[in-house]
């Protein structure tokens, strides 16, 4: 199952990067969203899947799933939420001010 999950994470990365390389801001944001989903799955796969009970201490249970990747992912989910919202507002402002959301047109000035 881990292998399949690794492949799934890879596909999420692939589609994320593909969207990232597009010119439109909305696609780029969708791309970053996909990449963070991929990263979360990636971290989860690094530990062992399904080898025990949920990591909540319970009487009589000896074997728990690895809590560490979960803690890392939890942090990451919240951070990527922050990033996505910031990106969205930024894209909104950029598109509003510049009148375009095409990255090829949003270049800096050459050699100011």
């Amino acid at each position, binding site marked *: *199952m*881990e*292998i*399949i999950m690794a492949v*799934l*994470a*890879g*596909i999420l*990365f*692939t*589609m*994320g*990067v*593909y*969207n990232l*390389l*597009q010119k439109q801001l909305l*696609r780029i944001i*969708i791309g970053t*969203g996909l990449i963070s989903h991929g990263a*979360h799955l*990636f971290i989860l*796969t*690094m*530990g*062992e*899947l*399904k*080898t025990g*009970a*949920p*990591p*909540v*201490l*319970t009487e009589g249970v000896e074997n*728990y*799933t690895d*809590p*560490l990747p979960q*803690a890392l992912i*939890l*942090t990451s*989910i*919240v*951070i990527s*939420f*922050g990033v*996505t919202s*910031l990106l969205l*507002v*930024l*894209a*909104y*402002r950029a*598109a509003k001010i510049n009148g*375009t*959301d095409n990255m090829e047109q*949003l*270049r800096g000035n*050459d050699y100011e």
Partner: protein
Amino acid sequence: MLVAVLLPFIIAIFIPFLSKWKEKIHTGFFVTIVPVLIFIYFARFLGAGFEPVVHEYSWIPSLDMNMVFHLDGLSLLFVLLISGIGALVAFYSVFYLHKSEQLGHFYVYFLIFMGSMLGVVLSDNVFALYSFWEFTSLSSFLLIGFWNYKKESRYGALKSMLITVFGGLSLLGALIFMSVLTNTSSIRGMIDQQQLILNSEFFPLILVLLLLGAFTKSAQFPFHIWLPDAMEAPTPVSAYLHSATMVKAGIYLVARYSPMLSANEWFFIIVSMAGIITLCWGSYMAVRQTDLKGILAFSTISQLGMIMAMLGFGTKAAIFGAVFHILNHATFKGSLFMVAGIVDHEAGTRDIRKLGGLMTFMPMTATLALFGSFSMAGVPLPFLNGFYSKEMFFESSLHLEAASTGIAGILQTSVPYLAVFGSIFTFVYSMYFFFGTFRGQSHLNELPKKPHEAPIGMLISPIVLVAGVVIIGLFPSVINEPFIAHAAEAVKGAALEEKHIYFWHGFIPPFIMSLTVLVFGSILALSRKVWAPVYNVVPGVLSMNKVYDGTVDRVERYSTTITKGYMNGSLGRYVRLILAAIIVISFAFMAITGGFTLDTSNVAEITAPEILVAVTMVIAAIGTALTNNRIAAILILGVVGYGLSMLFVLYRAPDLALTQLIVETVTVALFLLVFYHLPKLRKKEEPVSTKALNLVISVGFGALMTMVAISSHSSKFFESISDYFTKNSYKLGGGDNIVNVILVDFRGLDTLFEIVVLGIAAMAIYGLIRFRKNKEEE
């Protein structure tokens, strides 16, 4: 001792505040106090019974980087030079720099230089030495470029920086080699274990790198070209950095390591040869200059060459002469630079072709110049110190201890002749400097200002230095035993037998050499105009400057071309380049090291619900790229997110599933709020080649991540630390939910920063929206 080294740095912090009152009190007065204090502190160590002192302070003990200050005879000589000349120069600069200049900047650089130069000569730790060494280069750069509105200043500053920092980096290479070989970062430790270095296969490399550092800093041929351009600095800086102290750092380094390196024959060959060539070339070129400071710059180059050559000779007499000349050179050259500064200040030009006959206008300055230049020329008079060390140079050039075969042999026979040749020209430029400026016809109408004597304050510093010239000349033994002998001992690494300095030795070869210099020098000096055309032949149009300019120019042009080639402003292109580099490097690395492992022994079984979710997610992910409908794209992204939270449920991660569910919902809502304001998704109108490239890069990256994930699952190099959390969650954290305990307790600081990140993002979002509102109100 730490205080003494740090004092200039500490005072430098306060200079900007002090310079606020510069209209009332010239900042230079405050600065003068610093070197005077340091001088007094170190002068206490003088005396016949001097013993080396070591002070140790820890800095980064885990990296074996400690501040170890080691004061031996050689360091003491340099420390007194740095602080003594520093005090005189700071005082002189009070009268030289007008209050309207950027005094704050000047004195900050000046103090930084002083402190780091003290650090260079006192550090026993090579890495501390290197840091201070680069600081001197940096402050020299800033001081040369002090009048940064002048193009020549900027050029000179950049040139000195490039050359000395290049040397500094090679020095670092040598130091790292040596510290790895001997497993210590202490200079004394390295010299104690010198066999390890001398017998190492890297020794030739170490020698070359170390000497590159020393030669670039001390302006040895062919790296001397930066020094003449450094003369664009204000004259006090030239007198201090570019004649008395900084350029002697290279000499110091060679002297410091000579107990070890002189065991190798190549040390003698390279150092002597570089020194003697520099001596001849510098003095030959000095006569050609028309700028007073230009003459002095080439003169400094040649004198440094002479000291370097003596260090290369390595005999006791030679080292004694070298150390003695370091002191003598500082006295007479310092005073001559100050004289040049006075002439520039009072007559308005330093062009020797316009000057002349200034003796009647500035009798005091002329007298000082007389002593300085005659001492530099090595005129045999008992009250000029330059003669003594020149005499020692001749003597040691006749008694070399090297082998008489091979390159060393040829060098040995030619050294005395070259020494005389170089000294003849030294004599010529000294005379040229003095007579060209102060005697002969005056051309008052060509001078920008009417020349007059300098204010007394400006004359005090050169007077002190000239007094030094005369006192050392008259009573050489005053400084011999308590001072010079210790320094020479430190360089040689062994006690010297009693060495006396006499004026009169009888008609022995060195004296005859001096007389030859005097006679030929006088003839050449008088007939200078006759033979001057020889400079059109040698060096003619050839010059190291051309090599330098060409290199710098080409590097700039190439890097501009290359940078323009890929930095075209398109962010997409940058991302593509970065990703492509990551993919290529990672795959190559994986292939070379065999990093990819696949181990299926420890995998969970495949079940239907997971497959179902996974397939849904794959379809949704691909869908995001295919759809051209904004709402559809957003909702499909949501599908991926909800799919992920399903997976979290299946993999027994309840907290994750809950969080993901909430976050995903909020995100989708947010997207839906914003999307309306964004332009519609267009059909991708880009060419097929770009599309294919994007596809290749993204598939490559996905494949890379898959392989990394599989490998990291399949190979466990060490025990997971997760067990610790499982075991101690309740005991130490007092909670049943292990994930929560990790977040708020074990890794509480991480969570705190996470909150900070969110806070920053929230503020940024708020700012962006506020900004819009203000704009609309307008």
